[in-house]
C-alpha cells in the first residue's frame, strides 16, 4: 500500500467577518496517498477553496493537523510555509496567474528565484520543464502573446520546476474550451501516471472531475461523499 503523502486530521477553519463567525471547514479528516489523483468537488461556499488554500500552505487551519510529506505544517510561520510552497507544491490556477509582459521562460524560472539554484541551472531546468509541456518553441514569447491553453501549459511548467511532491490545481480548465481542457487534463494525467506526481484538483465540472481517480464532495465544510474508480 502506498504511503500517505497528506494526512488531514479534524481540520477546522473559522473566519471572522465583522461580528459573525463563518465556519468554512468544520472538521475534515482525509488521507491522500502518494501518486493519487484527487478531485475536490462541491458547490460554492462548501469550503473547497478554503481547503485548497490550506493544502497549498497559503493559509493555516484554526485547529486540527495537516501532515504534508511527514511534516506537521499547520503551525509553521509564514516564512517556513513560503519555503514549503517553494519546494513541495506546484500551483495551477484558473486564471493562469503568469506575470504579464514577461517571457514564458522567465515565468517558469520564477520559483527558482526563491531557492538556491544558480543562473545556468535555472535556465536549463526551466527549458526542460517547458519542453515537457511541449512549449520549447514558445519559450521566448511574452505571456500576452500566448493562447489560453499555452498560458496554462506555461503555468504547469512553472509548477513542475522544483520537482514538487504535490500539484494543486484550482479550476485549471475554468477559462478554457473543451478541446484545450482535455489537452491540459492529458498533461496532468501523464504527469500523474509517468512521474507519479500527486495531483489535487478543485473543480465543479463533473466531466473534468472524471479524469481523477478519486473524488470527494464537500458540503458546508464537511466531506459528505467519496468516490473511487
Amino acid at each position, binding site marked *: 500500500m502506498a504511503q500517505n503523502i497528506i494526512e488531514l486530521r479534524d481540520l477546522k477553519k473559522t473566519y471572522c467577518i465583522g461580528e459573525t463567525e463563518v465556519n468554512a471547514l468544520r472538521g475534515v479528516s482525509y488521507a491522500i496517498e502518494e501518486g493519487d489523483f484527487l478531485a475536490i468537488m462541491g458547490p460554492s461556499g462548501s469550503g473547497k477553496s478554503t481547503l485548497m488554500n490550506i493544502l497549498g500552505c*497559503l493559509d493555516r487551519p484554526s485547529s486540527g493537523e495537516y501532515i504534508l510529506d511527514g511534516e506537521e505544517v499547520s503551525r509553521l510561520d*509564514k516564512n517556513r510555509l*513560503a*519555503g514549503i510552497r*517553494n519546494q513541495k507544491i506546484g500551483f495551477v490556477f484558473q486564471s493562469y*496567474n503568469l506575470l504579464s509582459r514577461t517571457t514564458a521562460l522567465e515565468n517558469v524560472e520564477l520559483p527558482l*528565484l*526563491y531557492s538556491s539554484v544558480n543562473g545556468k541551472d535555472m535556465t536549463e531546468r526551466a527549458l526542460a520543464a517547458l519542453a515537457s509541456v511541449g512549449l520549447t518553441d514558445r519559450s521566448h514569447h511574452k505571456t500576452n502573446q500566448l493562447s489560453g491553453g499555452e498560458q496554462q501549459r506555461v503555468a504547469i511548467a512553472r509548477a513542475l520546476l522544483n520537482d514538487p511532491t504535490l500539484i494543486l490545481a484550482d479550476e485549471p480548465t475554468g477559462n478554457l474550451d473543451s478541446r484545450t481542457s482535455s489537452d491540459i487534463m492529458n498533461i496532468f494525467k501523464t504527469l500523474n501516471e509517468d512521474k507519479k506526481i500527486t495531483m489535487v484538483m478543485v473543480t465543479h465540472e463533473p466531466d473534468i472531475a472524471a479524469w481523477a481517480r478519486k473524488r470527494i464532495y464537500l458540503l458546508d465544510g464537511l466531506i459528505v461523499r467519496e468516490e473511487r474508480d
Partner: protein
Amino acid sequence: MLKRSLMHGTRTFRVAIRALGRNKMRSFLTALGIIIGVGAVIAMVSIGEGAKRGIEDRFASMGTNLLFVSPGSRNVRGVHSGFGSFQTLKAEDAAAIEELPAVMFVSPAVNARAQVVYSNKNWNTSIQGTGARYPEVRAWDVEFGSYFDESHVRAAAKVCVLGADVKQNLFEDEDPVGQVVRVKRIPFKVLGVMKRRGESGGFGSRDDMIAVPYTTAMRRLQGIDYIQSVDVRAVSAALMPEAQRQIEELLRVRHRIAPGAEDDFQVRNMSEIAETAAESTKIMTILLGSIASISLLVGGIGIMNIMLVSVTERIREIGIRMAVGAREKDILLQFLTEAIVLSLIGGLIGIGFGIGSSRLIKKIQMFSSMNTVVSVESVLLAFFFAAAIGIFFGFYPARKASRLDPIEALRYE
C-alpha cells in the same frame, strides 16, 4: 555562503532592473526628481566652494603676516559710531609703527573712488593712496615700469601706478609708462603697471585700481590730514602677536589714552579677517546646499509615491511570487531594491548634471566674477544622500508589499 548571498543580490538587482524597464517613462520621470535634486545640491555647493576658494587664494597671495591698523569706533555718551569715524590716525603714527622691532614694512592707506581720464577715454576706479613699500607689504609686484619711491611720497608727487584693468581700459596695447592721466583734473605721470591678480570669488576685480602716494591722496585729492588705515607686514608669522602688542602699546602712548580707557584704534590680523570671510562663505554654502536639498527631499517623496502606485498595480504579481515561494523578506528586498536603483541611477545622472551646470555657471559671462569648484565631498555627499533617500522612502511601500496576504493578493483584480 557569501557566494550565495552575492548571487541573490545580483538576482534581486536584475529583477529590479527588469521591473523598472517595463515602465521606462515612469521610471525616468521618477528619477528626474532625484536628478534635479542631486544636480542642484552639487551646483549650489560648487558656487559656495568657489567663493571660499577665491577668498582663500586672495588671502594666501597677500601672506599671513599682515596686520591692519584702523581707527576705532567713536563712543560719545554711549553712542557708538562706525569704524573709521576717528580722524586720529596720522602719517606720523605709521612712521612710528615702522620703527617697531617686530615690524618689517608699513604702508598707510587713503582710498577713494574717482574718474581717471586719458586722452578721450575715461574710467571710474578705486584710487588707492599707499606708501612706497606697498608692493612689499601686499606681496604684489610691478609688471613693468616701477613703483613710486620715498621721495615721491615725501614730495606728494603727482605720479601713479596702474592696475592691469585700468591699463587695459585706458591704454589697450599702448605703453602707458611715461604717459599722463588725469584724476580730478590733476595730471599724474604713469610710472608703471601692476601684475594682474585676477578675479576673486565674487568680489570684483582686484586689478581695477590705480595707486598714488598716500600723501598725494591726502593733500591733493581729498584735502584731509589723517590716514584711513595702515597696512603692516610683521617680520614673520610667528612674531604676529608680538607685533600686534607693540603696535597697541605704541599707539596708546602716542594718542595719550589713559589706562583703562578704550582704544581709539583697532588692530586686526590677516588670519582673523580670513577666518571671518571663510565663515561667511561657509554659511552661504550651507544655505545654498540646504535649499537645494529640499528639492532632493521632494524627489524622494516622488519615489515613495510611485512605489506605492507600483505596489498597488502589482498586487497580483506579488501574490504569484508569494505562491511560488517568495518570503516576506524577498518581496521587501525586491521593492526596496527598485527604489534604491531608481535613486542611484538618478543620483549618477544628477552628478553629471550638477558638474555640467557648475561648469556652465563658470562660463556664462553674466557671472564672470563667479568661480565654481566641484568638491569630491559634495559629490559623495549628494550621492549617499540620494541612496539614503531611496532606502528611506522605498521602505514603506516595500513593507506594505511584503505584508500582503498571498490569498487576497492572488484574487486581486
